[in-house]
């Protein structure tokens, strides 16, 4: 039984020759097949994975292996993989075979990791429940009637169910952290500009950032070491040295100043959620941290600002999907306009259509100042709130999501209600700050998450803060029933 192991453990086991990457990979492929009903994967690359595993085993045998050589993973289906279908959860790209690799994919290949397949997701990363995938909903392994969160729902459910030991994901407004919280995982959205966006299908360019979906902070650190760094192909990627994220995991938290925004702990916060978060904060106090109340007065504006900025950028980013050079093309277009309108109308689902329309409207003549420009000004105020806060504290903590996983279909008809579930996660994207979610005590037998928001480029410290919590608690080691019992 290897599928309950962290990648830290797998790395050691592979290096020690306890098992081969081929064995490990076969086991995961078998489990993926066995639990296909969770719908975690859009594409499984059986052949490619076994080939990569064999190569990894050779490398390990020759002594040329790195720490993650031979460790399998799933890629969110938003990362372009050359020769392997990349759908982005959309009918638009149902048959799209990417002609090149994303930088994240290249880095992971170079580390010798094995790609099991492409994980399900909300179409073009728009959604908080994974119900917006053209390839169907993903089921939450903790309770298959529930959503896994989104948009990286496939990545989260796969890791939670042991169908991949770790996965890549992306976060534009909480798409790593919220599904991590809902599936009992540790996920990190790095500082904007830490990980290259080259080859990652763009949703909202000034907000998107890739990161790991993992079983622990330590696992996050290992993958962060692999995917972070400068990339000349991305103008927004920062040319700045990368810390060794694994090196300082065991630093002491004595004297750590933890900021608790009053706005995150208002009366509206569900008491049960508040209790598990408070208990987690007590653990931090026990580790020597000092809790300080702070203010982020513009928090309530983050959702309105986000739902202008992100749709505006997406309305333009998604214009390239026009049925001309790749992707879905409608049957028998009668003229050029018909080709565009029907290819796009038929190729995009309802939520993507909605967001393109919001963005198109917000940018259109006569509304630009009232919506887009206003949102950009407020975005600065939100960022300045954080800058002030980080003069007083080292890290900010609060709940990741107001709720635990909700039933599939519960919010499907009310986009605004769905949007409100991003209330705590969105502002880190607007400000470009690194943020994480880590599992705390469950609420109603479902996982809940504690969110950490750090200052710019403080990923190493955040991973240290998260790791120390996980040395004192075992919430991250809890596994859903039905996936880890018995032999394989």
């Amino acid at each position, binding site marked *: 039984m290897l599928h309950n192991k962290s990648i830290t453990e797998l790395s050691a086991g592979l290096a020690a020759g306890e098992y081969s990457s081929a064995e490990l990979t076969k086991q995961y492929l078998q489990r993926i097949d066995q639990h296909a009903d969770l719908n975690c994967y859009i594409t499984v690359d059986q052949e490619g994975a076994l080939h990569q595993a064999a190569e990894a085993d050779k490398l390990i045998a020759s002594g040329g292996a790195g720490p993650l050589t031979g460790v399998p993973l799933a890629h969110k289906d938003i990362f372009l993989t050359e020769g392997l279908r990349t759908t982005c959860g959309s009918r638009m790209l149902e048959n799209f075979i990417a002609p090149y690799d994303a930088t994240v994919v290249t880095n992971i290949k170079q580390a010798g990791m094995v790609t099991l397949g492409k994980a399900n997701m909300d179409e073009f990363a728009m959604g908080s429940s994974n119900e917006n995938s053209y390839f169907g909903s993903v089921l939450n392994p903790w309770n298959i009637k529930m959503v896994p969160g989104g948009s990286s729902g496939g990545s989260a459910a796969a890791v939670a169910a042991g169908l991949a030991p770790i996965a890549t994901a992306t976060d534009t407004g909480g798409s790593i952290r919220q599904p991590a919280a809902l599936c009992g995982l540790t996920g990190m959205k790095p500082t904007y500009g830490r990980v290259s966006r080259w080859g990652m299908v763009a949703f909202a360019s000034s907000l998107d950032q890739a990161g790991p979906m993992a079983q622990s902070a330590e696992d996050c650190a290992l993958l962060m070491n692999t995917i972070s760094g400068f990339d*000349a192909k991305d103008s927004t990627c920062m040319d700045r040295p990368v810390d060794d994220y694994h090196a300082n995991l065991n630093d002491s938290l004595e004297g750590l100043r933890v900021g608790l925004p009053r706005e995150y702990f208002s009366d509206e916060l569900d008491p049960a959620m508040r209790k598990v978060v408070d208990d987690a904060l007590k653990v931090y106090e026990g580790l020597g941290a000092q809790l300080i109340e702070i203010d982020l007065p513009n928090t309530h504006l983050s959702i309105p600002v986000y739902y202008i900025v992100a749709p505006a950028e997406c309305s333009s980013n998604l214009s390239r999907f026009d049925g001309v050079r*790749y992707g879905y093309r409608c049957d028998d277009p009668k003229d050029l*306009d018909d080709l565009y309108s029907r290819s796009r109308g038929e190729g995009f689902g309802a939520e993507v259509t909605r967001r393109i329309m919001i963005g198109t409207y917000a940018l259109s003549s006569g509304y630009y100042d009232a919506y887009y420009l206003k949102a950009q000004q407020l975005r600065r*105020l939100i960022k300045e709130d954080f800058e002030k806060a980080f003069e007083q504290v080292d890290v900010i903590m609060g709940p990741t999501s107001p709720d635990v996983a909700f039933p599939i279909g519960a919010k499907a008809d009310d986009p605004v209600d769905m949007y409100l579930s991003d209330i705590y996660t969105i502002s880190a994207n607007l400000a*470009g700050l690194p943020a994480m979610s880590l599992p705390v005590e469950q609420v109603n037998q479902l996982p809940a998450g504690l969110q950490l928001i750090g200052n710019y480029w403080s990923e190493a410290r955040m991973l240290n803060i998260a790791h120390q919590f996980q040395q004192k608690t075992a919430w991250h080691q809890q596994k859903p029933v039905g996936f880890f019992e018995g032999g394989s």
Partner: protein
Amino acid sequence: MSISDDDVKKIAHLARLHISDEQVPGYANNLSSIFELVEQMQSVDTEGVEPMAHPLDIVQRLRVDEVGETDQRDKYQAIAPQTEAGLYLVPKVIE
């Protein structure tokens, strides 16, 4: 802020999104409630606040002017819906 059926049709055309007549009221409804949510922004005075387009305050990096690409037309056009003689084909464009 209320979005009318006509607004929806106009936006859908601008964004080249085919929406059936039956779907229009539903989108009008959704969009209206979203813009209602967004309306909160107007309550804040942002006079003199510089708009922020990027999370990081950095400037554009420049690339050396060198040709680094080779012809990969066949590979790129393998995924195209319709091509002929190396060209992408679309319904006749009328100038």
